[in-house]
């Protein structure tokens, strides 16, 4: 009989055993009778020879090899009985663990999806991706000519491909819907080595200039938009107003090799100028927007590949240089280095921004998990102390210590499994929420949606299992070992045991308090950072300003036509009811990204310094609240026929015009003949990020520049929703092919604070959790203490101690524990916050306000937790206390 059948047929085996042994016994008796013994004598002799029936049975059970299963089942049943008898303990323990596990898994899941999860392709570990390093500035983006040149190096790469991401609009003009598009070079699917789910995938011939445009759609998009209809192959899909045949579907579970970006539709890069004619330059050397992914040539070690690539790269850069760049720019581009990185998890732009916040978040949740474990350990210890008599009794009755340790560990494992199971639910919700947050951020920046696959996978499950094992060891082992160290004599006297328990437990609470201090201080520092970021003088005020992006590029206007178009848009919006004032801008503060170049100031190049520039309409400064320091604003009369003028900021004056009166100084683009005169100086305003000082910036009139303004900046005097609707109604018909994006200026600023808000939110949540857990732990310890000392307190009160003294005694005890925790926690907190200093703004880890607040919070939470046990202590009745034991 196989082992597992022996486990499951336990009952039938037992009855068979009984019959078999009884049969043997009966035969013995029969033989003794046959030898002439009397009936009762025969039975006595048989019993003598046979030995104890139960001992024999027990030995037979041992031989079955399933004893530990029976015992484990016994322990599990025993554990369940204990949990049922004590539901409060059970629920607190499981929920505590679920919070710790759930928080950890939620963060890990996102971290995994973004950084670790290998692409679902064969030999994903071979894949490599590339980063360009311009000095200390990394970028993952390459130009299309660079990708083609690299892909041609068959001596270095078995295959190499480029992946660009840009949203496309699908459907008829009146109901355009955005879809995430991957624009890939011809080698994309070959590099990945995946097969089509249906139809065919794109190959090199699809990415030739002039090749017919073909679309491959993802399995998910196929299910979502076409309801999984296989007849879709060969059908036309209307993309950017043009009919494109669907030639194939990618396999289920594959979401493109650009992590964090949706891959609904995959198109060849060379189809981009066909579908989006205004983006003709995207296949030229100017536009660096493509991620690169490759498989190295067979047998070429990565170090060698890197070394040979370094040589090839310098040459390649020179050949793919954009035309007409200044000598300085040329030099800068040529000094760029290229680095190979692992591409097993795909290529991604999100990673670099999110890695450090996610790592910091992982550290935070690990703390929460440890605190949760410490808490449960404490609960188990208290429970164990209460059960010391029971253990002593069991030891006295002959139970082995190992058995008792094992029984306690099984209880811990049961708690850990239940906690983890509940935690997985918490984690799933948490991951989805976190991805939603990040997606909002990405959407705010470049209008694309974000896609991150957070479906649970074996790696996450492995982490779950690891968490169960570690947490069990963390919170279960010590209490279990301590439980077995009860002397059988302790049945009569458990006070000594309880006292040693209290000391150990207090140490755990001290650890908990220190860890909580870490989190509470983190929350404080990030709250202060966020506050600083929100209140820092950015040189503008969001007020009631609306920002409305419109894109005229699809209209194929000549520069003079474009200026007339912009003028008409401005006029239309200014006339709208509810709009106080309106202007235009190419770049709005904190939208993410910007334009910069070296310039010629009074005949001298600013290189290597760069000047940021913006193209605006009159009244821009007035609307966004940037004050004019000297001179005048750009005016409607500053047209192409009038003298060229510009407005600069104070940083520009400080950097390039030291000592000169700014008004009337001359600025020009490198290589341009026309010079612009400075007619005004404005206050410094934040440009790309709140974390950097405002850079030198110049502002040019849209009527004198070829730059295209794309954002309407309007001061709303009526409810935002009404004004938004009015602007959309008036402007959208003029740009039918491109949906407008309208948001408030305030929202755009909040969006730019994403990392700071994320960290504040995470530390606040985790800090609150940690505090709550520490409070529960402290409350438990103090209650236990008071219960333990009831007799002593009763005696004190009987001898005339005042209740307030008793209260003070208990509180002093709590203060000692919290104080020690704070003393240990502060240096830890300083060290930890140094590691995340770059995520903070305007505060130092030793910020006295944060420290004072954090300590005060911990102190009050500690006192509050101790208050109830203290009152209980003061209310002890001296008479009944004597009978407590």
């Amino acid at each position, binding site marked *: *009989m196989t082992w597992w059948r022996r486990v499951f047929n336990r009952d039938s085996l037992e009855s068979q055993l009984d019959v078999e042994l009884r*049969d*043997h016994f009966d035969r013995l008796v029969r033989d003794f009778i046959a030898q002439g013994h009397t009936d009762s004598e025969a039975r006595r002799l048989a019993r003598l020879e046979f030995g104890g029936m139960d001992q024999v049975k027990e030995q*037979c059970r041992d*031989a079955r090899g399933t004893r530990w299963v029976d015992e484990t089942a016994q322990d599990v049943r025993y554990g369940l009985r204990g949990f049922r008898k004590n539901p409060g303990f059970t629920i607190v323990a499981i929920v505590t663990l679920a919070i710790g596990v759930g928080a950890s898994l939620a963060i890990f899941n996102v971290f995994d999806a973004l950084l670790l999860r290998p692409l679902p392709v064969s030999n994903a570990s071979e894949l490599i991706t590339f980063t360009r390093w311009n000095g200390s500035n990394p970028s993952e983006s390459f130009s299309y000519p660079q990708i083609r040149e690299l892909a041609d190096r068959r001596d270095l790469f078995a295959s190499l491909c480029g992946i660009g991401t840009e949203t496309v609009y699908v459907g008829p003009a009146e109901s355009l819907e955005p879809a995430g598009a991957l624009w890939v070079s011809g080698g994309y699917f070959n590099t990945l080595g995946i097969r089509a789910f249906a139809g065919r995938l794109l190959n090199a011939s699809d990415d030739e200039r002039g090749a017919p445009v073909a679309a491959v759609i993802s399995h998910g998009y196929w299910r979502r938009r076409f309801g999984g209809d296989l007849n879709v192959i060969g059908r036309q899909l209307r993309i950017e107003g043009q009919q494109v045949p669907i030639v194939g579907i990618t396999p289920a579970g594959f979401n493109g090799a650009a992590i964090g970006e949706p891959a609904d539709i995959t198109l060849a890069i060379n189809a981009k100028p066909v579908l989006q004619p205004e983006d003709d330059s995207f296949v030229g050397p100017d536009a660096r927007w493509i991620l690169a992914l490759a498989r190295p040539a067979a047998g070429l070690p990565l170090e060698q590949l890197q070394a040979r690539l370094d040589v090839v790269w310098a040459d390649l850069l020179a050949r793919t240089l954009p035309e007409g760049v200044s000598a300085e720019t040329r030099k800068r581009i040529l000094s760029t280095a290229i680095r190979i990185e692992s591409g097993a998890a795909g290529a991604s732009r999100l990673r670099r921004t999110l890695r450090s916040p996610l790592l910091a978040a992982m550290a935070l949740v690990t703390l929460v998990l440890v605190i949760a474990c410490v808490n449960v350990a404490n609960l188990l210890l208290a429970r164990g102390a209460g059960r010391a008599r029971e253990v002593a009794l069991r030891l006295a009755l002959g139970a082995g210590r190992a058995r008792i340790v094992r029984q306690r560990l099984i209880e811990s494992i049961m708690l850990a499994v239940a906690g983890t199971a509940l935690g997985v639910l918490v984690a799933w919700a948490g991951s989805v929420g976190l991805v939603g947050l990040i997606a909002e951020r990405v959407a705010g920046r470049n209008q694309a949606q974000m896609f991150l696959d957070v479906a649970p996978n074996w790696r996450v499950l492995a982490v779950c299992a690891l968490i169960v094992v570690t947490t069990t060891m963390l919170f279960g082992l010590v209490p279990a070992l301590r439980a077995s160290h009860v002397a059988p004599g302790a049945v009569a006297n458990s006070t000594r045991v309880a006292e040693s328990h209290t000391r150990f437990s207090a140490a755990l609470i001290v650890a908990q308090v220190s860890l909580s201090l870490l989190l509470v201080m983190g929350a404080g520092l990030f709250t202060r950072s966020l506050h600083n970021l929100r209140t820092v003088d950015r040189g503008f005020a969001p007020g009631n300003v609306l920002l409305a992006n419109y894109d005229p590029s699809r209209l194929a206007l000549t520069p003079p036509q474009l200026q007339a178009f912009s003028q008409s848009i401005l006029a239309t919006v200014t006339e709208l009811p509810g709009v106080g004032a309106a202007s235009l801008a190419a770049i709005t503060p904190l939208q993410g990204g910007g334009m910069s170049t070296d310039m010629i100031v009074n005949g001298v190049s600013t290189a290597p310094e760069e000047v940021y520039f913006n193209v605006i309409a009159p009244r821009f400064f007035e609307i966004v609240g940037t004050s004019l320091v000297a001179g005048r604003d750009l005016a409607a009369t500053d047209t192409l026929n009038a003298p060229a003028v510009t407005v600069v900021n104070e940083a520009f004056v400080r950097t390039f015009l030291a000592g000169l009166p700014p008004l009337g100084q001359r600025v020009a683009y490198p290589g341009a003949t026309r010079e612009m005169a400075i007619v005004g100086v404005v206050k410094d305003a934040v440009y790309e990020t709140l974390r950097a000082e405002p850079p030198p910036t110049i502002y040019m009139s849209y009527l004198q520049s070829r730059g295209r303004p794309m954002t309407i900046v309007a001061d709303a005097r009526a409810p935002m929703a009404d004004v938004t609707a009015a602007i959309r109604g008036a402007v959208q018909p003029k740009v039918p092919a491109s949906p407008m994006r309208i948001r408030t200026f305030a929202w755009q600023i909040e969006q730019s604070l994403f990392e700071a808000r994320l960290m504040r939110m995470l530390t606040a949540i985790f800090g609150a959790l940690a505090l709550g857990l520490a409070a529960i732990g402290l409350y438990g310890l103090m209650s236990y203490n008071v219960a333990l000392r009831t007799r002593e307190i009763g005696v004190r009160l009987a001898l005339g101690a005042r209740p307030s003294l008793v209260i003070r005694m208990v509180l002093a005890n709590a203060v000692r524990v919290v104080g020690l925790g704070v003393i240990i926690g502060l240096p830890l907190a300083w060290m930890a916050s140094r590691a995340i200093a770059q995520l903070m703004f305007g505060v130092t880890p030793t910020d006295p306000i944060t420290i004072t607040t954090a300590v005060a919070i911990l102190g009050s939470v500690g006192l509050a937790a101790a208050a109830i046990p203290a009152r209980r202590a003061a209310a002890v009745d001296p008479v009944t206390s004597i009978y407590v034991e």
Partner: protein
Amino acid sequence: MAAHPKSDLPQGTLDLLIMQVVVPEPMHGYAIAQRLKLLSRDVVQVTQGTLYPALHRLENRGFLSADWKPSDTGRDAKFYKLTRKGRAHLEAEAASWERLTGAIATILGAAKGEAS
């Protein structure tokens, strides 16, 4: 009962003896015990606490198979019989046992020879 002192069985030999006993025909536990006693002329005494676990172990390892069949008492008894796998195992074990005892006997004999 007997003049000889009772001997403890070396580890593993009980299995060998049990399998040898059931070679001719299927037997129930009591019969196996009686047979062992008889064949070893009372030298080997096997208690029920050793016999039954050994039987069950052999059954679990697939060397013996068991059937419940009517017996002489009129009730069903559990009859053990040697499986093909058990037979192969028995032959291998018996051969190795003979080699071992042979070697020991030779050594003891040689030592006796030298002493005299």
